[in-house]
């Protein structure tokens, strides 16, 4: 309440100065029934938020220019009925963040690995919300001759936390080979310095299982439309899970390079290459799965959103 402290000082300084405006506003404040008078109302929070200073009134500046022709307007003949800020926003049709949804198919690609295997892979995310709180759906996985592999679906509630970061809380369901595990998920997602799109998510599952997933990507522009996007994904697990081709510690690393051409912002085909290294098994096919320990995949796909 710095205003209140400043007020006596300002009044003291006023003695030598014209006080008509002050007097006028004081009188108004004292008048009963002027319910909207600022002085009578409890200070709203935002009065503090504004740096709001009583200025030691300066003597009127001697302006040698001719007077202006300004005429103050008469008061309104009808005043608006009371509205809550939300009603006002509605009346103005000016909600700055009405609910909005986006679905991004970041990768929908067909690839041929150097092992000669063909596979279709996807990674997609969708959100719905107001910009501060959002419901997220994320999924990625792979389909090959043996069916769905290495798939996951995350459903997360996300809340804007700092300028560039959101925290996220939710559930993950694994699908594909082996037992389909469920996890509780907690993570952060945002834009790291130097424009790296980053996600880091920690998971706790049944039977004391834990996991962590880290993903970062970058857009390197050759032109406004031709964009090279390197991407890195790391998965860590607390326990071995051989049926899903998972080993404890750093379980797999995936690094990709995709060169896309944005015909529009919303539609971009690409070609790329992806390296995968799965740890824990011997080189070759992972025990109990059709996943390879080392894979280099050439791929072509499409990225689109709406």
């Amino acid at each position, binding site marked *: 309440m710095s205003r209140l402290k400043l007020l006596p000082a300002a009044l003291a300084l006023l003695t030598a100065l014209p006080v008509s405006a002050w007097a006028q506003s004081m009188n108004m404040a004292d008048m009963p029934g002027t319910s909207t008078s600022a002085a009578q109302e409890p200070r709203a929070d935002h009065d503090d938020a504004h*740096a*709001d*200073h*009583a200025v030691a009134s300066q003597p009127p*500046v001697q302006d040698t220019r001719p007077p202006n022709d300004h005429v103050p*307007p008469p008061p309104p003949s009808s005043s608006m009925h009371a509205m809550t800020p939300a009603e006002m926003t509605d009346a103005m049709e000016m909600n700055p963040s009405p609910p909005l949804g986006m679905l991004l198919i970041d990768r929908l690609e067909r690839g041929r690995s150097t092992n000669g295997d063909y596979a279709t892979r996807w990674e997609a995310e969708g959100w719905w919300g107001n910009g501060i709180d959002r419901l997220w759906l994320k999924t990625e996985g792979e389909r090959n001759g043996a069916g769905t592999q290495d798939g996951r679906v995350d459903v997360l509630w996300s809340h804007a936390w700092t300028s560039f970061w959101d925290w996220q809380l939710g559930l993950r369901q694994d699908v594909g080979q082996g037992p389909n595990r469920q996890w509780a998920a907690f993570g952060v997602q945002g834009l790291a310095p130097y424009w790296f799109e980053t996600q880091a998510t920690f998971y706790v599952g049944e039977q004391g299982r834990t996991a962590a997933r880290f993903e970062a990507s970058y857009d390197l522009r050759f032109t406004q439309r031709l964009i090279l996007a390197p991407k890195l994904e790391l998965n860590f697990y607390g326990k071995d899970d051989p049926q899903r081709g998972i080993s404890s510690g750093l379980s797999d690393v995936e690094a990709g390079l995709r060169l896309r051409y944005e015909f529009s912002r919303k539609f971009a085909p690409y070609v790329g290459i992806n390296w995968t290294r799965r740890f824990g098994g011997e080189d070759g096919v992972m025990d109990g799965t059709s996943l390879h320990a080392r894979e280099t995949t050439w791929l072509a796909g499409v990225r689109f959103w709406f």
Partner: protein
Amino acid sequence: MDKQDPRGIQLPRRRFVQGLALGGIAAGLGLWRDGALAQAVAPRSELSGNHFELDIAELPVNFTGQRRLATVVNGQLPAPLLRWRQGEPVTLRVRNRLAVPSSIHWHGIVLPADMDGVPGLSFDGIPPGGEYVYRFTVNQSGTYWYHGHAGFQEQTGLYGPIVIEPREGERHAAQRDYTIVLSDWSDTRPETLYANLRKQSGYYNQGKPTVGDFLQDVGREGVAPALAQRQMWNRMRMDRSDLADVSGATYTYLLNGQTPAGNWTGLFDAGDKVRLRFINGASMTFFDVRIPGLKMTVVAADGQAIEPVSVDEFRIGNGETYDVIVEPTADRAWSIFAQSMDRSGFARATLAPRAGMDAAVPALDPRPLLDMSDMMGAMQHGDMGHGGMSHDMAGMAMEMPGMPGMPAMPMPHDQAAPPLKTGPEVDMRVATPRNNLDDPGVGLRGNGRRVLSYADLRSVNAPISPRVDREITLRLTGNMERYRWSFDGVLASEAGPLRLRHGEHVRIVLVNDTMMSHPIHLHGMWSELESPQGEFLARKHTVVIQPAQRVSYRVSADAPGRWAFHCHLLFHMAGMFREVVVA
């Protein structure tokens, strides 16, 4: 106009940007077969007197080859010129023939609060099929405009010029007098434009830094300087190319409702003095205006007379108006060239002795990039290698030289900006804002032309506010990545109104903590722009604050009621908004 910018702006559909020769309303009305309309002086509706009938309705238009629905007044885009006379009462019956609520706001006009046309503050808006009768006495003179204040109707065409004749006649005689309404048209619905920005804030930025730009800089300056130059921007996640949220990628820029190809033409006889009343009625576009070969004498800003100042070029923010006088001496055509601030397109018209003439249209200037002063304010030198830009800057602020010998100067403490926390609503803050009003702004600095700046504005008459009783500082804040805009990092719905006592004189200090220029418009009361030393410069209704800049103005709270106070960029407005209550 063959080659666009070499830095990589792609204008893939030339026709789209330049528009159709025969676009707009003519096509919408099915008159397009009438070849005589091409290149002709555009028919312009003008209404004068004391009583006005205005009908808001939808009308098909065609600016790009695509038929779209525009929001128009009396079948006109822009809406008809309203010619009023100072001192006279006007009555305006506005009918809403849309299927949704509508409203018209008289931008820059001093009037009773219930006539201001802001739904939710002035009145309930005009329901579909309904009408509202605006009644007020016009006590000012000059160039103003009116526009929709409900939803995004302004983007789809709901704007038009107002000219108020002074009681004692014009201060500057001119043989010709034209209003020039600059605007931006998109075939995409404004709701979609806004949604695209919220999904990807750089959606319409087609000048993002590329590998090629980097290699060019390396070639010119060497690896280390090129890297260093990028280091801070990239670490801060600030985009130097972020000059306009919406660009020529979707916009066709219009001048009096004509595309560049449509070429609106104003006639003159050699030796005439031509008064051009520029109005920026665009939703999201700042324009840089010049008439190659002609000096422009600026005689009014925001409708208010200023001491004439002769310039080659001026920047006009959304909602601002400038009156200029030009004297085309030769019997030839001249181009009025208004390029968007991000150089992604332009609006254009011709001044000519006869209809159908044409002059060379200059190439777009190279696309500029924001520089350090746009991010750091007054603290633009030195190594920002450590710890961002907050605390160690405060010391610099205190060391900034005071302004000795100026009895009426602002309190020095407002030089050091009050604390502001970054967060979801705020992605940066400027510890030492610059107050260099003589800066014409990014893209105009040192371009070899004499460019108008706020420091050039000198009102011909005295201020309304002779003194300042109270000072209110507001930070203009935003988060570009999230596409959120606010004052002080707080949305209007959460902040409650800003309360002024009737009769008090306040100084509003605006500090821009974003990397964009914001035209801030206060309804109902004048914004009396001050120099950094607190001297009155000029009376405005819309004040542009450049990135990292601090601008102050006085407001005489002499208009009881509830008023809107907001950024006039359409997609910033909902967030960067306050209700102002004068009681």
